[in-house]
């Protein structure tokens, strides 16, 4: 596996990614209506080699936060700093520099690969996009990438349509790894996969991190998965971070009532224990809705 880009020898004390008071707003419809504020002064840090989990309900702004880091969401305030460089508000062209260091794996293994391209073409794209690889070198690298994600080399000749969900997600991971990024935004990377495939992909992500030292911003709604892969976990509710702490802490003994509710709502694979948790959740709900 190619090591991560060794640009800007980072000061170990300095976080790889710093998000400071980030505000994201979407214009909705008419000019006169006030814009919809999706993120309210969110601050977070991701360190090199670490996995920061991000949980929260849908609509809480997890995906928007990831997209803002990728330059795909409109930043209305605050800053995003990557390896000491401001990356918020960069134009498309200027972004193409740092974007090599930040990659993404989306949730939907069906939509995130162009169905009319071969896997080889899909993987060539990020390699030749910045003229870093010749076609020949790209082909070799594709072999390495497929191998790294546990797919046979002849997958390159196939189209995404012929692959299973798990295989597609492996391809998406290979595509993210291609430019040798230092940070991968994983937006619900295993939510659409079945149990055994999910375990395989989680293992793959953990192994790849150990091998390359890449950092993950791991977005998911499943606390047990996030707890398993993360060093630290941030909890988001309605565009704000309500809690950010050590992973075991958040997944076993959370501080914020919102997190507690989230934890109780996640069913556990044990009917007896689950019945108790359900009762606890109903009690909590009866006492008045937690976390507003």
């Amino acid at each position, binding site marked *: 596996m190619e090591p991560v880009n060794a640009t800007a020898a980072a000061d170990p004390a300095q976080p790889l990614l710093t998000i400071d008071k980030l505000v994201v707003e979407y214009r909705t419809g008419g000019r006169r209506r006030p814009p919809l504020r999706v993120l309210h002064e969110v601050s977070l840090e991701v360190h090199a080699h670490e996995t920061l989990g991000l949980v929260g*309900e*849908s609509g809480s702004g997890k995906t928007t936060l990831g997209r803002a880091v*990728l*330059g*795909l969401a409109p930043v209305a305030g605050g800053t995003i700093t990557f390896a000491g460089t401001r990356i918020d508000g960069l134009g498309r*062209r200027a972004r193409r520099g740092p974007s*090599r260091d930040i990659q993404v794996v*989306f949730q939907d293994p069906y939509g*995130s*690969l*162009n169905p*009319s391209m071969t896997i080889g073409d899909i993987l060539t*794209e*990020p390699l030749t*996009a910045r003229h870093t690889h010749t076609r020949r070198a790209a082909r070799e690298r594709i072999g390495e990438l497929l*191998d790294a994600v*546990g*797919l*046979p080399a002849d*997958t390159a000749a*196939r*189209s995404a349509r*012929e*692959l*299973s969900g*798990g*295989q597609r997600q492996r391809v998406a991971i290979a*595509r993210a790894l*291609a*430019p040798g990024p230092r940070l991968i935004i994983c937006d619900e990377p295993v939510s*659409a996969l*079945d*149990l*055994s*495939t*999910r*375990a*395989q992909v*989680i*293992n793959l992500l*953990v*192994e790849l991190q150990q091998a390359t030292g890449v950092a993950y911003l791991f977005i998911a*709604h*499943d*606390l047990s998965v996030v*707890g*398993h892969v*993360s060093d630290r976990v941030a909890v988001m509710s309605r565009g704000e971070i309500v809690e950010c702490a050590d*992973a*075991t802490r958040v*997944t*076993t003994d959370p501080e914020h009532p919102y997190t507690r509710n*989230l934890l109780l709502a*996640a*069913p556990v*694979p044990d*009917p007896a*224990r*689950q019945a108790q948790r*359900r009762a606890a959740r109903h009690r909590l709900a009866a006492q008045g809705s937690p976390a507003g």
Partner: protein
Amino acid sequence: MNDNQTAAIAPPTAAEAPAQSPDRAKPAAESVPAAAPRRHGPAGRFLRDPIAVAAAAVLLLVIATGVCAGLLTEHGPNKAALDAVLADPSGTHPLGGDGSGRDVLSRLLYGSRTSLFAGAIATGVALLIGVPTGLAAGYVGGWWDALSSWVANLFLALPGVVVLLALVAVRGPGLVGSMVVLGVLTAAPVFRLVRGEVKRVRGEPYVDAARVAGLSDPRIMGRHILRVVRVPIITQASLIFGLALIIESGIAFLGLGEADRASWGAMLNDASVHVYDNAMLSVWPGAAITLTVLAVTLLGAGLRDAFEDAPKPPAATRRRRVRGPAREPAVRVDTGALLVVDGLEVAYPAPGGEAAVVDAVSLRVDRGEILGLVGESGCGKTQTALAVLRLLPVGGEIRSGRVMFDGRDLAALSERDVNALRGRRIGYIPQDPMSNLDPSFRIGSQLVEPLRAHLGLSRDAARRRALELLDRVGIADPARVFAAYPHQVSGGMAQRVLIAGAVAAEPDLLIADEPTTALDVTVQAEILDLLRSLRREHGMGMILVTHDLGVVADICDRVAVMYAGEIVETATSADLFARPAHPYSAALLAAIPDGAGARSRLPTIPDRVPSVHDRPSGCRFAPRCAYAAPGCAVHPEPTTHRDGAVRCVRVENEVIVWNR
């Protein structure tokens, strides 16, 4: 770095080293489906389409005659000879002469030049204007989109042919001029088409992924977006070409064309004067026009099919009647159970035989009971659900077995009778919410219509009920969602809308395929509460297909575990979680992250579910089973085990005894 897994299950007491079957020795790099059809490139697909090839040949011939007209005849198209007026075919004039003494063959050959030239100009102009503006409007949006859409709408509102004829009549003849105008007029529909397609693809995650990969906008347009829009563009272009050809002929026929240009239309004009003297005069240009237009249209269709690499579903009806011996009319038998599936087999035609995606599946759901159906992707859970609902996609057939619902065999009912049950007494929540909502109708009307049809509610009552249901499935602003189109709501919302629709008629049986997978845990908990209350209040029975064993533990009374088309274990929830009997069930349970040892390697099942075509002849799980032994080469039958059944030779013979 591959996925060689550790054995997933707690050791059995009767400890024998798990047999190492040869399949386990190879690294668990994912095998790619073996039965994948051979792919042909667009060129290959085109060449295998005889109609398209014939159309291309005709068109090439027309082009060749146009280009080589000078070599094929020594007569000029406008050179009149008195002795050739209305002459019969002869050595010098193979097709005879026309009313002015011009050679018909020569005019026919030179006429094809004019026609092709006209088509090329109009099509070229239409594409040159329509495609880039449409791409820009769809991709960039903003004021450019607003302005260009306004202009396009203006053009679309114009009666094109009238405008064109008026222009030609006022400005005088001019082939190039009139075809350019035609091109401009037909650019509007091209614009609309391209813009719409681009808007649709633009939101696809793969376009975002390309942006993240650092591709420039022009490259994204070229590589991802143009690929998608090229197919409709080809179709549109062939139509414009044909239209231009006809309009050019029309103008010339009306005598508004350029006098000194040979044209099939002008030939028809001349022929119309002499229709009683020489009828053949109109046959030649008429045939040329018809043949060329037909060839262009068929070529367009052929190209479209060649580029459209997705296999298109045949136009045949989506749902099929069950094949096989005629059954007796469905009789009502009271079995006590709500649904009894017995020996269900579902098969699809496959190259070299048939593929049984569901095989000898037997299930039972009582009133008020919730049965979980679990198993890896591709094991046949959805196909089982669809077969029960008689909603199998084209090609899929119930080969054998009975599906007794409330005493009637659904597999033998007529389409009409099944239809009457679906929606009313059997509710269905499909796996993929978005593709099950019609993008062109508001969500409200999609909920209200079935309510009116099934429950006979008035429009107002149906509306109230729909809003109430949206509220119950946890939608915060029911009125907004009611008025929204499907693309305006998130996937989770769409899922809830479908749940609301499925339970609206308070069905006796609900078949829910991954109903909560797209939802947050908090919403999921509410939905599960809702389903629980429906079961309590109406005694609703339910089949719940899910990957989430937590959901199973929360709500299911019994569980059926499916593997490679078969049910390998049925058990009560309590038993399954405490003491899974089948090695596959145990392996599935082990793959859940349980909080212990963060970042430790999760136990996984090596390799993946075998495709329908290479299932082992013995136990289908054997190649992946940590307990496989030589005895597993016989295909196990289900045997009773505690309150359920299990399909494993070694459990049956009590070789594997679980100590949990």
